[in-house]
């Protein structure tokens, strides 16, 4: 080998140098490792002076390879690759050894740490000499964007992009956009009416020339890669012609079939078989629910068709498919609510006056089933006392360990609404009050002053089994008041369960469809939890809102806007670099066995019938290397992770063992250091 390798060992202040003897390692590498032309240590390699050191050596010493032993490559690989590129060296001819995260920070003994650092540098030096020059390819970015989910996150993202002049396809599963926010009454802590602030944005979406709103639709198939996705969208049959319908609502009025609305009204109210979820729905076009529709059941009725003034009803309508090309995708698919029936001791579904938080939202809403009156399940009786139970399904290792983030504030909002609308006494049974955003703590104080009672303790049980005076006919909340150190039985008329936010039931399937990962719980995983919160590991796919984890409306809106900003950046730049770390097949070596064909989840490998060999579409290849490992003929090579490179790294890592056990040593000379 005739490569000239430069080895640079970073002190990282005292982070590395405090444990690893960097001078000794630098000297050792320079004297013992084959191919090393320059070996230096420096206080901060990532500083501009550190980078210049590398650049100067490349220019003056004619280095052909660079090894930087410093922090994790996840932190500074780009920095050092750039430094190499600045000096005219292909950036892929640089390799990092993580002697901070994997050595100085985790090894206690200085001498042992120094030895481990040497082994890692030997591995890197060995490997880097087999590196090949790679060039990222440039592909154009399609300016269209797909936004999945029409809740407030998706609405915000769509409007940001559309206002900036870029076309957006907004896909929503339900007949109307609006998401959970449309179901709410007030929003904390300002008590703005949710509909008053949401519906103008919804109409903006509906009317925006740059937004193609696809309601009652779902993504069927996704293929392609960053900048160039092809998406097939299934538009479910609405049985109403969107072109002809004026949204007058006569069909809804005339429909004779009334069913319980489990979705928008959370089972508290009714809708017709032809319906729109709520009066301000966008688009304002009703859909027919074929499960309950009398015509679909019996073949008779057609009241809607008879009365429709524009002949928009079409019972023959079929699901249709739309194929679109987009450059980027924003997933804002929201959350599901924890099923409160899962906790039987809280009595939901068994005790009539135990409500979920969403049911109570609908009850408080002036356009909801009780027209905003807070009443018991009988629909008339106003409660004299209400208990709000926090953390139902959250912060509980039996269900979900995480905090649902919004329930403390919602319960304060509920408390306020009860106090405002009724004379009832309110008890809030909490584990911890979490009011840590702008204006939240002040709202908590306000409720303390308004007379809401706070009981610190996790509720054991809600029961109607009375045994003390004053308990008859009431729901008894059994709770340990941990501040007073006593067991309490609080008799109330109404109980509200603050249900946990959970990932969508189909989040994992959706994740697979778009090629992004989910956390253990099922929340979409961001590229970096702090520094890259809306991007994902798959380029061109962004996430926003509660699909990424529980969060309140301001945070959701911020993420929607952030995701849109990231997409705008991609579109404005116009092209995107595709990592050259991909697999390729050497045709002459391929036997056409097709083992690799089924291994690729990205469908990057196709079989060329005419040549009887397999072929990898490098634009689709994500570089995992599974096919490389599987090819029995070793006809597939994985750029930057070739067998030879990895073998060389193993040999280097084990340099000290190899020299001791008689195995064929890599080119490492163990001669004594001359004085």
């Amino acid at each position, binding site marked *: 080998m005739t490569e000239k390798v430069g080895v640079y060992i970073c002190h990282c202040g005292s982070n590395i140098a405090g444990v690893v003897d960097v001078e000794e390692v630098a000297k050792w590498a320079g004297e013992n490792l084959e191919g090393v032309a320059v070996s230096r240590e420096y206080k901060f390699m990532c500083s501009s002076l550190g980078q210049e050191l590398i650049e100067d050596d490349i220019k003056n010493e004619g280095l052909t390879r660079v090894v930087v032993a410093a922090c994790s490559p996840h932190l500074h690989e780009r920095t050092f690759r750039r430094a190499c590129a600045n000096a005219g060296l292909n950036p892929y001819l640089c390799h990092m050894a993580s002697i901070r995260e994997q050595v100085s920070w*985790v090894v206690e003994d200085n001498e042992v740490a120094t030895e481990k650092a040497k082994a*890692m540098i030997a591995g890197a030096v060995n490997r880097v000499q087999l590196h090949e020059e790679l060039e990222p390819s440039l592909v154009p970015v399609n300016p269209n964007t797909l936004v999945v989910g029409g809740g407030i996150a998706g609405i915000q993202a769509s409007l940001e992009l559309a206002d900036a002049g870029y076309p957006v396809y907004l896909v929503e599963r339900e007949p109307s956009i609006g998401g959970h926010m449309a179901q709410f009454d007030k929003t904390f802590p300002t008590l703005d009416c949710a509909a008053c602030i949401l519906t103008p944005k919804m109409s903006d979406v509906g009317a925006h020339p740059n937004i193609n709103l696809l309601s009652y639709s779902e993504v069927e198939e996704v293929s392609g890669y960053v900048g160039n996705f092809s998406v097939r969208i299934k538009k479910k049959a609405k049985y109403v012609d969107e072109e002809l319908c004026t949204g007058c609502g006569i069909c809804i009025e005339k429909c004779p079939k009334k069913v319980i609305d489990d979705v928008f009204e959370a089972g508290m109210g009714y809708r017709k078989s032809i319906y729109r979820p709520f009066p301000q729905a966008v688009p304002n076009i009703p859909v027919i629910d074929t499960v309950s529709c009398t015509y679909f059941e019996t073949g008779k009725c057609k009241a809607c068709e008879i009365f429709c003034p524009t002949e928009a009803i079409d019972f023959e309508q079929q699901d249709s498919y739309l194929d679109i090309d987009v450059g980027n995708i924003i997933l804002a698919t929201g959350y599901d609510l924890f099923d409160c029936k899962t906790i039987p001791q809280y009595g939901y579904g068994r005790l009539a006056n135990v409500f979920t938080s969403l049911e109570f939202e609908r009850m408080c809403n002036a356009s909801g089933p009780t027209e905003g009156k807070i009443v018991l399940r009988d629909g008339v009786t106003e409660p004299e006392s209400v208990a709000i139970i926090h953390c139902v399904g959250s912060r509980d290792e039996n269900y979900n360990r995480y905090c649902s983030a919004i329930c403390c504030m919602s319960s304060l909002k509920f408390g306020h609404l009860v106090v405002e609308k009724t004379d009832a006494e309110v008890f809030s049974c909490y584990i911890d009050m979490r009011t840590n955003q702008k204006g939240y703590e002040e709202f908590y104080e306000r409720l303390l002053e308004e007379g809401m009672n706070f009981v610190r303790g996790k509720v054991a049980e809600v029961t109607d089994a009375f045994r003390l005076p004053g308990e008859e006919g009431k729901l008894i909340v059994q709770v340990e008041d941990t501040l007073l150190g006593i067991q309490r039985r609080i008799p109330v008329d109404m109980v509200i369960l603050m249900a946990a936010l959970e990932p969508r039931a189909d989040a994992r399937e959706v994740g697979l469809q778009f090629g992004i990962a989910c956390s253990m719980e099922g929340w979409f995983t961001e590229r970096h939890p702090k520094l890259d919160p809306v991007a994902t590991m798959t380029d061109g796919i962004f996430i926003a809102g509660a699909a990424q984890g529980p969060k309140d409306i301001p945070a959701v809106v911020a993420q929607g806007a952030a995701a849109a900003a990231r997409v705008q950046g991609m579109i404005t730049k116009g092209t995107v670099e595709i990592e050259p770390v991909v697999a390729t097949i050497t045709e002459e070596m391929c036997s056409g066995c097709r083992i690799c064909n089924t291994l690729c989840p990205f469908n990057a490998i196709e079989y060329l019938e005419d040549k009887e060999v397999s072929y990898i579409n490098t634009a689709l290849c994500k570089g995992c290397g599974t096919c490389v*490992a599987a090819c029995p003929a070793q006809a597939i090579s994985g750029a930057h992770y070739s067998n030879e490179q990895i073998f060389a790294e193993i040999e280097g*890592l084990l340099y000290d063992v190899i020299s001791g056990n*008689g195995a064929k040593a890599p080119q490492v000379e163990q001669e004594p250091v001359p004085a």
Partner: protein
Amino acid sequence: MAEERFEPKIVAFLCNWCSYRAADLAGTARIKYQPNVRMIRVMCSGRVDPTFVLKALALGADGVMIAGCHPGECHYLEQNYKAMRRFSMLKHSLRALGLEEDRVRLQWASAAEGVQLAEAINEMVDQVRALGPLNWPGNWSEDGEVEAAIERLAEEHAEAMEVPA
């Protein structure tokens, strides 16, 4: 002084997305673990060719760890399942070669599991230390017998290696 303790050398293949980040996290959180493991970054646990493991053992490693994302959390959707399949096959072959079970280990570690990865490493180092040095013949390329034995094994288990459509 007591006899010098045997310090095994273990090579670990860590996937770029979960396990290598777990190692990063263990570092950032200053979780101390035994220094006997030397790590190699691969893009996915699915990249780990069984020959990598054999090569490491042949060159003098006393054990090999393969670490990847948890099932269902693979950055490449499902390639860790392929690593899993390959691993059981590999174990089968290694058993035939007389290798103790504990010398190879497949470990799932998410990017958040720095502690778990460190614990797994400690556990494995202890196990391999208890087993003692592997002392495999060092020189593969000059010992055609061993290579031939591995090839024969692959042939014998060709059926198990087939990937269902």
